[in-house]
């Protein structure tokens, strides 16, 4: 398997997506669960249409953060130690493995964001303002979450706590993304510039990507 870096990335991403097609974990479990959570919120806070329209975008981002972690981690944590050893013996570059797993998570997260977003728009009557900026925000958040989720899953892989520890690790670390996403939407709504928030999220994405790629080999060796 000693081929080019990007070929290895494509192979790993393809493998993970095939696994998802067979199991349907994200499409048939996580996405319906996220949509259900959006349905439950009004039962707790009240069904006032004006209130729901106001809190809708924030609720959407919270759901994306909490459930998006499950999407990213679910894919990355399914690799067992013998599988990792086999990949290593075949000459898989650990950094390519990390980028490949992140890429498959990114695709699934974008699907998750789109479906749950449509549900949120329908249930909460949210306005879609500045579609270009919104699409960029969705992409950056999905990238950040997939990078964070994949990295954290590799950290906890084969520990005694397993994936139970992941939400505690990822939720606080994803706060800059949550802040950026919610403030960007608020900025669009109020007609303010949102470039600084988008740049904050991009900076987080770049930092996590750099840490993930640079520490992929020591993580594999551990």
């Amino acid at each position, binding site marked *: 398997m000693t081929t080019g870096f990007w070929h290895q990335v494509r192979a790993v991403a393809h493998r993970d997506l095939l696994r998802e097609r067979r199991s349907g974990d994200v499409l048939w479990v996580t996405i319906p669960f996220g949509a259900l959570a959006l349905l439950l919120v009004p039962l707790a806070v009240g069904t006032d249409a004006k209130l729901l329209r106001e809190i809708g975008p924030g609720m959407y981002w919270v759901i994306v953060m909490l459930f998006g972690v499950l999407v990213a981690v679910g894919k990355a944590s399914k690799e067992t130690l013998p599988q990792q050893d086999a990949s290593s013996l075949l000459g898989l570059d650990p950094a390519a493995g990390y980028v490949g797993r992140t890429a498959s998570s990114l695709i699934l997260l974008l699907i998750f964001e789109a479906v749950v977003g449509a549900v949120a728009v329908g249930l909460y009557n949210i306005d879609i303002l500045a579609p270009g900026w919104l699409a960029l925000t969705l992409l950056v958040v999905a990238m950040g979450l997939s990078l964070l989720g994949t990295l954290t899953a590799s950290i906890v892989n084969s520990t005694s706590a397993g994936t139970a520890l992941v939400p*505690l690790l990822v939720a606080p*670390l994803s706060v800059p993304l949550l802040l950026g996403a919610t403030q960007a939407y608020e900025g669009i709504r109020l007609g303010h510039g949102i470039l600084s928030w988008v740049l904050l999220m991009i900076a987080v994405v770049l930092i*996590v990507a750099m840490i993930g790629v640079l*520490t992929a080999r020591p*993580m594999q060796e*551990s």
Partner: protein
Amino acid sequence: MKVQTRIRRWPWVAIVLSLAVAFALSMISPKDDVQGELVRIMYLHVPAAWLAYVAFFITFVSSIAYLLTKNLRWDRIAAASAEIGVFFTGLTLVLGMIWGKSTWGVPWTWDARLTLTAIMFFVYLGYLALRRTTDDPIARASRAAVLGVLGAVQIPLVHFSVVWWRTLHQPPSIIRPDGPAIQEPLMIVTLVVGVVVFTVIYGALVVKRIELMHLEEQLAEIERSADRPVAGEAVVVPELGKKP
């Protein structure tokens, strides 16, 4: 008294002496015109917050050093520093809540500095939880080091939150481009001495914690070796008249 014993005791002597100095200063320092006696909480709150930053920054640097050198000494420093940082972050939050209850009327507000400090607390609580999930010291060190580097992203966010967002929490009081906001020299001296004292305490605690980690590792090694079979245990002595 042996020299070694004296060296072992220096952390405790340093802690007691520096605490006594800081306590005396905080008591003779004048009360604030607005906050009254409540200002004395600041002499604990500010140094505790400073120490939390220092501790997590040391964890960050030691984690990088471990990833580069694979020397477990760096992992011990990172872990010891994170433990102390978590304690002092908790102390910062509690003291801030006591002060907030009297000043703002509520112990907690959804202020950027407060919220991000609480989040930083949970990040490093996760770091400590992660360390407890792996017995193998090498695997534990590598995993914790990656999280130690990743967690440091929060530190500048917490520190600059009072500058970037309009918050209820006051901006920096001493290190400011236009000079300190505090006018009373004794108050500034007390705060600075508090910061120095807490840094001494941090150093002493890190040293003691690393010593304790050494002992824990030795104990774990003894326990592991007790379970190992003795060399030659599998060899059975043949007995006459019995088939092997």
